[in-house]
């Protein structure tokens, strides 16, 4: 059995064994093994030339990873928390994302780290900044929900010739466990997955919210309402085809995410459904997302902030009888 975190670790480890171009770079990833221990033990095995502890300098980490990628290396850079990605925003959206387009210089690098709330991390250790980067052409944005996908996708990200942002969900790190296939496998970037088949209402979601949808589905099943849960797995590129397919199948769609509602990827997904499956809809598209506030710290506040199982149950019932 592998936890979500172990799956990521194993994925990076195996890629480092497989390909000498791969190395890790970040803050406290060496002897300490990373704030969440994703790279624990790496330095003993691979040495400090390949598991590089850096100064606290996110802009330098991203840029140095990019520079190394120009020589053909495949860096895997860790943000201690994905909240700190904003410190490297310029390097990501201007230096890295545009390089293949501007001067034919691909940037095969992975920027990874823990994102998401539900752990009372407060405003700076809980955010979901992924959609900002989905909006930037040239980046791939990956948000796995399962251990299986986390391992398969981190491997694909490392092998990809483009900059991949890999948003791990810290709530899932040690809470989910599953049996993984033996040996090397990858999961294709840009392909959604049907987490649960259902005929009545579709919930299009990703990362930790997959489990909120699943809990809701179990409650609703008892009432005879069958939710279909589509786990996007990557939000850039979006699997437009799968989004349209599920909308055409159930004719009722909820889009659920942990990011803020305004400007979250749900708006984009609603627009895709509008473009590809408008005539198939029997009800308006519903968005369930976090509040448009900073992520609050205190448990009751954060609970109120985050999308809840009850929200999904309530909206699914409403759509079913629309």
């Amino acid at each position, binding site marked *: 059995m592998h936890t979500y975190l172990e799956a990521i670790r194993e994925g990076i480890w195996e890629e480092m064994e497989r390909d000498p171009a791969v190395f890790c770079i970040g803050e406290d990833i060496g002897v300490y093994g990373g704030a969440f221990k994703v790279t624990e033990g790496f330095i003993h095995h691979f040495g400090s030339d390949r598991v590089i502890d850096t*100064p606290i300098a996110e802009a330098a980490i991203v840029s140095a990873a990019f520079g190394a990628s120009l020589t053909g290396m495949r860096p895997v850079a860790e943000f201690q928390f994905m909240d700190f990605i904003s410190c490297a925003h310029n*390097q990501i959206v201007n230096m890295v994302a545009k390089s293949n387009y501007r*001067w034919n210089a691909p940037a095969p690098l992975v920027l990874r780290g823990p994102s998401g709330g539900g752990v009372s991390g407060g405003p700076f250790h809980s955010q979901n900044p992924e959609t900002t980067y989905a909006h930037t052409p040239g980046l791939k944005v990956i948000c796995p929900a399962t251990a299986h996908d986390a391992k398969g996708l981190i491997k694909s990200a490392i092998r990809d010739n483009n900059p991949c942002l890999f948003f791990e969900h810290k709530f899932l790190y040690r809470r989910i466990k599953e049996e993984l296939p033996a040996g090397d496998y990858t999961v294709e970037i840009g392909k959604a997955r049907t987490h649960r088949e259902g005929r009545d209402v579709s919930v299009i979601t990703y990362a930790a919210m997959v489990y909120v949808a699943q809990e809701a589905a179990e409650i609703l099943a008892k009432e005879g309402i069958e939710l279909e849960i589509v786990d996007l797995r990557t939000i850039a590129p979006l699997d437009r085809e799968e989004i349209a397919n599920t909308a055409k199948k159930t004719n009722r769609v909820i889009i659920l995410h942990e990011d803020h509602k305004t400007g979250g990827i749900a708006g984009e997904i609603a627009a895709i459904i509008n473009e590809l499956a408008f005539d198939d809809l029997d009800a308006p598209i519903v968005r369930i997302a976090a509040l448009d506030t900073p992520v609050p710290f205190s448990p009751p506040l954060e609970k109120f902030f985050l999308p809840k199982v009850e929200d999904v149950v309530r909206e699914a019932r409403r759509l079913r009888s629309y």
Partner: protein
Amino acid sequence: MKAKLNKAREKSASPAERSHSGTHSANGAGTKFKSGEPIRFNSHGIPDYRLEVPDFHTVEEWVDGEFRYKVEGDLSVEPPPLRDSKYLNKEQTIDIYRYMLLNRKMEQTLENLFKQQKVVGGVYLGLGQEGCSCASAYGLREGDWIGPMIRNQGALLVRGFKPRDVMMQYMAKSGAPTGGRDAGSHFGDKHKHHIAAPISMLGDLIPVLAGVALGARMQGKNIACLTWVGDGGQSTGPTYEGFNFAAVQKLGVILIVENNLWAYSTPVDRQVACRDLADRAIGYGVPGFIVDGTDPNQVYDVTYEAAQRAYAGEGATLIEAKMMRMRGHAMHDAAAYVPKDYFEYWKKRDPIVRMEKYLLEKRWLSEKENTALIAAVQKQIDEDRDFADASPYPEGSTAGERVFCDNAVEIGFGYGKPKFKKSDKQRAAKSTGAVHLS
């Protein structure tokens, strides 16, 4: 009314001259120049290769209710001759001179093209800075990388791009290195010229060049990675993050701070509180140097020595090149805010004029040879201009292409497959440890 912009810059009883530790033993030059004269150090122990150390600064004044800048200090001094290079021979010196001419004439042509409205957007000139740009790039060898900024169009030529490439960039033509996707000096080349394309955001190339050096080192090669930043650009966060990273990792980054006294309309006196930007080397823990940016020989020597340290794995070097931006920030800017005295002082220090005089006086170049050289450069520029002018614009519909790199593309190593040491103990990925938050 007038006030010093910065009190800290006032000349004070300076501490006893002492050398910034690690600097002068590491500078590869000993404590004397070839000519036998001792090296001068500034009050923080930073070696200063200049043959003159002018003392002036920009102060503010109000005249008839108008705010303006004026110079305080003696600007009447005549320039010294160039310093003899410790390394350059006659052919190399002439080659640098030729690149400087090519640089200047290319930019003069760009100015004309701009006036003929053949340029899309603005034109940035490195007038007065050609010596620094060309001679520093000349100090590298094949396989080294550069990360140029807007005043380093000469460096692009030294590294093998042609004037027509730069011209087509400005004219947004399909034949330009970016095919019209980015402007001016914003281009690079991974494979042949080893140039990292700049982005507009200042300071950002510094950590990138550190990463290039890191990647090369992983592949078994210590290379020199040269990049430049302005007196303004060095104020940014990525400058500190990037250069500190290079320093702590002992990467062969050579950072030339081109102190041309102005950042757009802001005098350096409003940018930093220190007198010499090279002093920052002390804080980074790397060797720092001051050179006259209008003396190509000084610039070459200090860059060349920094490159040797990079190859030896001795790490990064910070060089401050002092000079003057002789035009506005870009073509649209008349630089009315710059006191006229500055232009007069620095015009006498025009790097091309100084170099020409040096070559003629040394009899490395006769008047006749010089005339022929200038004519040949002009001919090349004219041909390149015609070529660039004739190049078509890109097809609009290609704008959607190549956002991503196809995964079928094989991205090779720049310097060969890395050979890492590995622990001999067989291990698998696993952990149990405590976490920060869970």
